[in-house]
């Protein structure tokens, strides 16, 4: 049955898509973008199917090459994987629709390599998420990273330097991860995640394990842009082409977080990283500082994309905070926030891209009258921003509710305060935009409606609607996440 091969088809379709793109590009350049959309759509559909299968029939294990793990590479899909897969593939799919016009303007004449890299990035990220083998994770991380460096470097004049710095940081991160994997391998002899999790308890107390954990945590934190290691993120997101900022904001950092969760809670056991060696609680404190620092820095920005980038730093803090608190509720909130932040940030970056596409404006104080000029786009922006603030009934509210509740459950009042305070800070930096966009324009100025093209508007609106729908029916994803969380945490 072909459905048995779903996990690998997800990736192989991407590979084939990427390998074909140069050939398609030689025939007709214009076909590259629809081709990328088609491939990512297939990946999205497969990941939906996978999620459905995992929920109904339980975890999936696929042996590549037919070799039984730990000798061969295994694709292991459980609810967490499938959930993140759907998010990543969904974002890749919708941004690919959006990107046709946006990238057509910002990176003209390079459709072929651009969409090849686009598909490779998408495939790389999906590969990271779906795999059950820790070295395989590294390989796919590199595919995705290289594609990401290249895509970022296609932005404006400063983007090359941003990309270079990202590459340096990314290589440090990848090398650290490789070293962590090496330490684990040297001490256990295995590379399979499930197998490792059986072997690692024998190493408890060994300094090697500590160093390995430290390496993996630092490496993944760089990829996730956790607070003190976030320095590459603002530059990269500001200068990258808008569609790419949207894509990366919604997916790549989330994949990093996924990997962090996977390594900490599946490979190494929760009880070890929480109680014996309080790695996770250290991370929560960093995350808490990051939440506030990110918000404050976002307030100081006037470039809309840069502001959104700093806001990402803060939002990533939420996720790590939830995961690090490691009780049922906070963890659910944290994982739910992966979904909600993807929806919100991708939507917002797409709006920023649409504004830049139509007017070229990046400074938020020059956005006067935009509410009349691009009513639907800005309407979507309002929805996204309200969700960031955490106004019900949006998905951002649902995840903040769970995070705050989880912090309370953990008895940590500082974090409760941080979470709630940060939503006020978020309100501050978004409200500046509202004021400029909707108010202070007088009747005398006639503003012509000049909406973004349909292929950009459609994904934007879709994300706004999704934010609301997911907010109204948040118990659905929460129930799904809970199944996984209760399976992992005692």
């Amino acid at each position, binding site marked *: 049955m072909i459905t048995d091969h779903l996990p690998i088809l997800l990736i192989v379709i991407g590979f084939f898509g990427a390998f074909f793109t140069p050939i398609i590009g030689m025939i007709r350049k214009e076909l590259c973008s629809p081709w990328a959309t088609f491939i990512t759509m297939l990946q999205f559909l497969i990941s939906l199917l996978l999620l459905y299968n995992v929920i109904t029939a339980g975890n999936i294990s696929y042996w590549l090459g037919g070799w039984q793990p730990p000798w061969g590479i295994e694709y292991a899909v459980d609810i967490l994987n499938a959930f993140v897969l759907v998010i990543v593939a969904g974002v890749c799919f919708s941004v690919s629709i959006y990107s046709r016009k946006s990238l057509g303007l910002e990176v003209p004449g390079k459709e072929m390599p651009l969409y090849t890299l686009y598909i490779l990035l998408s495939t790389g990220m999906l590969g990271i998420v779906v795999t059950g083998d820790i070295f395989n994770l590294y*390989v796919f991380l*590199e595919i995705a990273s290289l594609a990401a460096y290249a895509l970022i470097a296609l932005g404006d004049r400063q983007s090359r330097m941003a990309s270079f710095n990202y590459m340096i940081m990314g290589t440090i991160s990848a090398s650290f991860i490789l070293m962590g994997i*090496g330490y684990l391998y040297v001490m256990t002899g295995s590379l399979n995640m499930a197998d490792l999790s059986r072997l690692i308890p024998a190493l408890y107390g060994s300094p090697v394990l500590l160093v390995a954990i430290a390496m993996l945590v630092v490496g993944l934190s760089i990829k996730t842009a956790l607070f003190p290691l976030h320095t590459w993120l603002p530059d990269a997101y500001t200068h990258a082409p808008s569609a790419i900022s949207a894509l990366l904001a919604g997916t790549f950092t989330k994949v990093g977080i996924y990997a962090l969760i996977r390594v900490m809670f599946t490979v190494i056991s929760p009880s070890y990283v929480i109680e014996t060696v309080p790695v996770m609680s250290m991370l929560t404190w960093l995350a808490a500082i990051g939440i506030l620092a990110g918000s404050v820095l976002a307030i100081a920005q006037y470039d809309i994309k840069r502001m959104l980038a700093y806001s990402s730093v803060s939002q990533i803090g939420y996720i790590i905070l939830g995961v690090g608190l490691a009780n049922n509720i906070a963890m659910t909130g944290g994982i739910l926030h992966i979904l909600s932040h993807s929806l919100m940030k991708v939507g917002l970056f797409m709006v920023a891209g649409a504004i830049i596409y139509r007017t070229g404006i990046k400074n938020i104080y020059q956005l006067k009258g935009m509410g009349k000029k691009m009513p639907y786009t800005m309407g979507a922006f309002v929805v996204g921003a309200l969700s960031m603030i955490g106004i019900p009934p949006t998905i951002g509210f649902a995840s903040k509710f769970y995070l705050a509740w989880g912090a309370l459950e953990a008895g940590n009042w500082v974090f409760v305060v941080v979470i709630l305070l940060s939503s006020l800070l978020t309100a501050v930096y978004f409200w500046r935009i509202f004021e400029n966009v909707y108010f202070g324009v007088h009747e005398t100025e006639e503003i012509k409606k000049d909406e973004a093209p349909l292929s950009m508007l459609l994904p934007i609106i879709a994300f706004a609607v999704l934010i609301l729908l997911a907010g109204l029916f948040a118990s659905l994803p929460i129930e799904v996440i809970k199944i996984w969380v209760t399976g992992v945490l005692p």
Partner: protein
Amino acid sequence: MVLELIFTKYNYIIYITLMTIGFYGMIGKRNLIKKLIGMSIFQYSIFLFYVSAADVSGGTAPILLKEPAVYVNPLPHVLILTAIVVAVSTLAVGLSLAIRIYREFGTLDEDKILELSK
């Protein structure tokens, strides 16, 4: 204790030292190509770690011989083959970025570039 460490595990100390040198090259140097060389050294040090961990004293290279023999562990070699290719790919990407930056700014000095791009 320390002597024992040095005599049985000197490979690790060496790899860590190399890694630190590479790390310094990445964060302490301002020239982009120097940074890339540092990056390569950084990566190579990890390869050294893997390969030395695979070594078995008295073993032979992992190519099957007619008569039974002790082989060194082949798996890290495979991983490192992969990683070397990744390293050279990263180097190529980094160099192309550096060239592109040089074309735009006329310099490879990080500080100067940051100044120019303000």
